[in-house]
């Protein structure tokens, strides 16, 4: 198996930086390449533009591909969205525990491998380049409103200690290792993808943070 290679380069021309990330998927020669470009705005971003970007971020964050694993201290991942029928806790009585990786009873890794090969098996246990896990409990946003999630994401105490640039870098880092956000936009296995693309999500995050992370009213 080929390892995925990361080609990172910086390009200027009005942009702050560009991280180009090339992926090689497992076997064969079919290489899909995602170039992520940080489109830093040259002018100030209005609150309206920021809120509009947030709406799109929320559409991603609240999408089942993301929110199913951003759950509360019950530590129970969810199965929801069109791929699953009605919303229910993850089957098989799964509880990821305080560890959020299941070591208290059954590790997530029993079924969810850490791998960058495509998720092409229908209804199979998905995998990414990051070990499978629940998001930290302070990032819990399953079932929460746009305003609530927005407050959380802009609060360093509840977003992993990140400022605006940190949130942008988080997306870039995710792309580099083909982790959960990349997977959310290309989940395979018959699952519905999060709306938009990785680039659009990055663009929105850049806009929203540049606008000062405005949040909608309740």
């Amino acid at each position: 198996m080929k390892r995925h290679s990361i080609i990172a380069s910086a390009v200027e021309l009005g942009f702050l930086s560009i991280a180009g990330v090339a992926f090689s998927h497992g076997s064969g020669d079919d290489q899909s390449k995602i170039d992520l470009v940080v489109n830093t705005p040259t002018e100030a971003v209005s609150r309206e533009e920021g809120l509009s970007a947030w709406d799109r971020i929320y559409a991603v964050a609240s999408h089942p591909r993301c929110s199913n694993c951003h759950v509360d201290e019950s530590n129970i991942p969810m199965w929801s969205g069109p791929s699953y029928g009605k919303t229910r806790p993850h089957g098989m009585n799964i509880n990821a525990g305080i560890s959020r990786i299941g070591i208290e009873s059954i590790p997530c890794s029993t079924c969810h491998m850490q791998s960058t090969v495509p998720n092409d098996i229908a209804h199979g246990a998905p995998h990414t380049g990051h070990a499978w896990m629940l998001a930290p409990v302070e990032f819990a946003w399953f079932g929460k409103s746009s305003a609530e999630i927005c407050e959380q994401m802009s609060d360093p105490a509840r977003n992993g200690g990140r400022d605006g640039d940190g949130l942008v870098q988080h997306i870039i880092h995710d792309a580099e290792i083909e982790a959960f956000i990349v997977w959310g936009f290309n989940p395979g296995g018959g699952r519905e993808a999060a709306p938009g693309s990785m680039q659009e999500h990055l663009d929105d995050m850049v806009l929203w943070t540049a606008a000062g992370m405005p949040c909608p009213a309740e």
Partner: protein
Amino acid sequence: MASIGKIARRTFLVGSVAIAGGVAFGYYAVKKPHKNPLLDDLANGEAAFNPWVKISSEGVTLITPHTDLGQGAYSMQAALIAEELDIEFGQFDVDPGPPAAAYYNTAIGPEIAPFRSTDESFQANAAREFFGAVGKLTGIQGTGGSSSVPDSFEKLRLAGAVARETLKKAAAEQTGVAIEDLKTANGAVILPDGSELKYTELAATAAEIKPVQNVTLRDPSQWRLVGKPMQRMDIVPKSTGTLTFGIDLEFENMHHATVKVNPRRGPMLSYDASAAEAMRGVKRVLPVTNGVAVIADNTWRAFKAAEAITCDWGPAPYPAEQEDHWNAVANSFTAEHLDNEWRHDGDADAALEAADSVVEAEYRAPYVAHQPLEPIGAVIMVTDARVDIWVGNQFPRFAQQQIADVTGHDVDDIHIYGQYVGGSFGHRLEFENVTLAAEIGNQMRGEIIKLTFSREEDFAQDFPRQITMSRGKGVVGNGKVDTFDLSIASVSASESQFGRIGLSSPGPDGQIAAGAWNMPYAIPNYRMTAYKTHELAPTSSWRSVGASTAGFFADSFLDELIHAAGADPVEERLRLMDHDVSRKVLEAAAEMSNWGSPLGPNRGRGVAFVESFGVPVAEVIEVTMTDAGIKIDKVFIAADVGKIVDPVNFDNQVKGGVVWGLGHAMNCEITYSDGMAQQSNYHAHEGMRLHQCPEIIVRGLENAEKIRGVGEPPVPPAAPALANAIFAATGKRIREMPFNKHIQFV
């Protein structure tokens, strides 16, 4: 043999029409014993006293023709022979033997007779004898209908006794000691001086003498094995990964095959396999009925290649959308669909007419899949001379005929080697894996091929349980149930199942009403009417068959009436009961559960009683309504099978039946969209998982006169007992399976 296969086709008629004109000829033919199939290929010095015991100088083989689907049939059959043969586990091998008329099932036939199992009238018993005779006449070798124990119980002990007495006779000839002075134990004849002659040492002599036929069975007080806890012979191999299932078979130069068949069960119009043919390890892509087969050097490569084939599928020969299936059933409660009025005590019409108020309810039970964990498949080799196939099937002689129809061989030349099966629940009553394997083998004569269905293909091609609805009308008064008028409309799983192999089933389908018409209750006005919906999606027998749905309808509706009457669910059932064995079963379950004792808040207790396959079963279920949903705490179950052969396996089978009944009632259905089953794997149809499994407390009773099997009877009362318990805990009456459409479970 070829002719017997054909006779079987003509004369195996399920239902009452077959009676007319058949008795005289049937009786004559029944008198003639079938030939012993083991005599065909005995080696020199090998003896086969009857179709169940084979002894050579190398060892003792007990023939256990009932298919082992996980229910422990091989061990049970071996124990019955060993009981009289005086041989211990570990001293013999078992072999399912060749498919043969001699292994006809004596117990399935009598169950077809349209009499309540509690009916011991001359007429009822005469009908049972007749249908039993039809079984013998036609040589139907079958495993199903919880019939393995009743079929085997006397027959196999007799077989063991005949073998034992014949071995003693051989020992007498060999030693000159009088037979009366010989004893048997531990697989040997014991001489008066205490020395032993092993059965294997007597094989050559025994082979030369005529088997002793005049034997008497031992008194139950002398039984060493029957009724005592045993350890099934497959326990250790199955706990160490050393037992070979059909899917595990390995032969030199074996190919690995899979199939891709129209998921709408219509024709295949065209296909393009060019991409698949270029894939690594793919050897052939062959057309088969309504689909294609891929032959490769590895099962996974065959699966991947099958995925890569594009097929143009014809439409489904049934409604494409689920809603239309329901509509068809709902529209069947009409005179033209009347299948049979199975029972009418009193005058239901008059009672309903006269009543101030009528309790009415409607129930539904969906299609449900079998999906045992071992996917279906078979290993086959077809040559010009013969067919060899390694597969576990519950009707091996029908399987022979199915293969013969594909390959053109005489059924005599079709050799089936029965295999341990990783679960069936009715799936292995069907022949798709057998006929598709035959089609593949026939196109690759001289090659040995293992066919394995992918789980998705298995789901798509499974024949689910019948879809059915019920409407009840009832009257209560003075704290009592007065009128119980239940109608059931259903597709006929039996008709669908047997129709696929060209067998007609004239007369009404008793399974539509099973568990509903035969309740041992003396309700003043009791009517049970069955309506038959024309075939929709093809269906089949599913563990406990008709009673799995009709039992749910009938007991649920009775429970509703009892609650409407303000009576106690156990007390009122007991008051109505007119069958002593059944009453003791219900009393046992009530006593075990401490029925009537207070439960905490948000808790409830439900009872159900259903008799199926001649076995009365009562279940009491306790549930708690938690914040996360209903939790099933405990199940108390009592069943009367007349005689328990192995208490350990009995306990395991009963618990398994409860889990099966509950899991599917709670969680499972098969629905159709665009003509295809929408559930493709266990994520969408899992039955029950461990965390939902309650504590199950089992009691076996032995008051019934006839011995019965217990594989299926624990299933039907599980669903109504749970629904009744949920009602007790929450006030919510669930009338449709799966229950999780209406209430959340923990």
